[in-house]
């Protein structure tokens, strides 16, 4: 589509047609005391001066050489192919594909993304994506409430604390009651009033849940309740059993690990997939494949749009009418360029490196690994001196692990460590050294 600017001649002509003397008259309803006359801004800079200015600002950033921080946002290898494909202007600056006849390329890309996610998770249907993992989980909870006509949702401890905050906000708007339960209390809280149980695996503390056993426990106590799993780093699907092979009804994940840079915490990618019986209740966009009426040529289009709020209005389960198109394209390119074997290799390296670090930490006096279940690429450790640990990491130019007291004030001595395939041997040695240097207890320092 061409950009058609207004020139002075056109403006004058349009004003005369509608009977307005000058452009300012269109704004005469705005009170005079609210009109701004000039902004207190400095003089404009030339292009080379702007570049120099930004470069100076950029130098203020501390770019760590390696990271041991996870907690929902991860450093992974991103194939150069991803940037190459998404940088094409047809994808990078494209508008939302409501007009199928003008958007076949993007619709095909989204269709392929949906297909890849469906295959990877073994869930029957995946949508075109939501904003991020947290909102995808919140939307899943609302979807479950609508399907079951029940208004209580249980959240198992171990779901990312920020995701819980997001779900609380969404549920408050929909008048759904949210209850956070421990694994021990789960069975007693499972009544016939529960619409869904939400759990995260691998969870915020790194534990991998036995999803098959957990799902069976839920179904036994509350047969109509939906089971919703969320995941913050889905690269683990390279080795773990896919949710489609369990009783999980709705699966959501943060897709940032699939080819999207951590940046400053966003943008994310809300992966959303479900079993086929829920197809007509899934929120968000669905791209489908169809055929010409008068021929055999195939094409792509937005389908099952009667679910969406522009048609269903107040009866819709969600008001979302978009998707993270560019990020879903990144994920698609990431997954197809790695393929099955590549993703398996990445997941294996994550486990191996994380376990290597775990073993090394176990050998340092003063530290204790607290996980009792199997872990993927994250685990929690009790530390003798967290402030010293953080400082030591920075001294070694490493982005430090997360002190859990940020979310759980009672967990004063615990950090959440993340090790991915992107952590080099050198960085791991540096991290171990940082831990060793920081193992004197606070009380001993005078």
């Amino acid at each position, binding site marked *: 589509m061409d950009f058609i600017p207004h020139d002075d001649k056109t403006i004058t002509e349009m004003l005369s047609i509608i009977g307005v003397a000058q452009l300012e008259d269109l704004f005469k309803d705005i009170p005079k005391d609210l009109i701004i006359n000039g902004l207190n801004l400095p003089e404009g800079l030339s292009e080379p001066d702007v570049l120099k200015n930004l470069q100076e600002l950029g130098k203020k950033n501390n770019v760590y050489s390696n990271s041991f921080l996870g907690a929902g946002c991860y450093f992974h290898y991103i194939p150069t192919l991803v940037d190459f494909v998404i940088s094409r202007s047809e994808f990078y600056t494209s508008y939302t594909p409501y007009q199928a006849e003008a958007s076949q390329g993007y619709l095909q890309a989204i269709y392929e993304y949906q297909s890849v996610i469906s295959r990877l998770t073994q869930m029957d249907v995946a949508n075109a994506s939501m904003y991020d993992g947290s909102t995808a989980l919140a939307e899943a909870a609302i979807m479950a409430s609508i399907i079951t006509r029940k208004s209580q949702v249980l959240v198992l401890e171990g779901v990312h604390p920020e995701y819980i905050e997001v779900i609380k906000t969404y549920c408050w708007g929909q008048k759904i009651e949210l209850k956070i339960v421990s694994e021990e209390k789960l069975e007693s809280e499972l009544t016939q009033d529960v619409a869904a149980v939400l759990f995260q695996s691998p969870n915020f503390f790194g534990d991998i849940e036995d999803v098959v056993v957990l799902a069976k426990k839920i179904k036994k106590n509350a047969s109509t309740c939906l089971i919703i799993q969320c995941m913050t780093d889905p690269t683990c699907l390279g080795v773990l059993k896919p949710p489609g092979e369990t009783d999980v009804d709705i699966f959501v994940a943060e897709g940032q690990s699939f080819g999207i840079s951590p940046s400053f915490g966003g943008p994310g990618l809300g992966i959303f997939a479900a079993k086929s019986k829920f197809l*007509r209740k899934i929120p968000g966009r669905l791209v489908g494949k169809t055929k010409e009426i008068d021929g055999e040529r195939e094409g792509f289009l937005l389908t099952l749009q*009667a679910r969406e709020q522009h*048609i*269903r*209005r107040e*009866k819709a389960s969600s008001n979302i009418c978009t998707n993270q198109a560019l990020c879903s394209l990144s994920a698609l390119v990431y997954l197809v360029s790695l393929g099955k074997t590549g993703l398996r290799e990445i997941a294996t390296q994550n486990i191996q490196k994380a376990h290597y670090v775990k073993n090394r930490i176990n050998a340092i006096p003063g530290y204790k690994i607290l996980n009792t279940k199997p872990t993927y690429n994250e685990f929690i450790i009790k530390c003798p001196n967290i402030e010293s640990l953080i400082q030591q990491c920075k001294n070694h130019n490493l982005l430090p692990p997360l002190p859990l007291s940020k979310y759980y004030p009672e967990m004063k001595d615990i950090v959440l460590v993340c090790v991915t395939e992107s952590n080099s041997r050198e960085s791991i040695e540096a991290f171990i050294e940082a831990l060793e240097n920081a193992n004197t207890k606070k009380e001993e320092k005078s």
Partner: protein
Amino acid sequence: MVNIIEHEFPSELKYLQTHEWVRIQDNIATVGITDFAQHQLGDIVYVELPEIGMAFDKGSNVAEIESVKAVGELIMPLSGKILEVNTDLADNPESVNSSPYGSGWMVKIELSNKNEINELLSVEAYQEIVEAEKA
């Protein structure tokens, strides 16, 4: 049969102003949407029917009727329990358009309060409502 231009409204049926029709036989009522409603909605693609055995009050929403451009509701004309639903609509939703009073029927109800039948509209009263909406 009373004909208004384009639409058919069988005179032996009763109607609601929300465009449902009702056929009553003893204690059983069959319900669907009128020819006017199907025309307004356009091509029906999916009907979400209630579960058998569920009880509803008169006036409540029991089914959702999806067309390509809109979603309509089926309102219970009378209070009762769902006895039967038209499972053919899963594969042939278009019968709501082609035969709204026949193969496009939606639910059969066992009535719990036959007095409510008096509150239903006759074909003439319904016809007036349609005329007003078309104006």
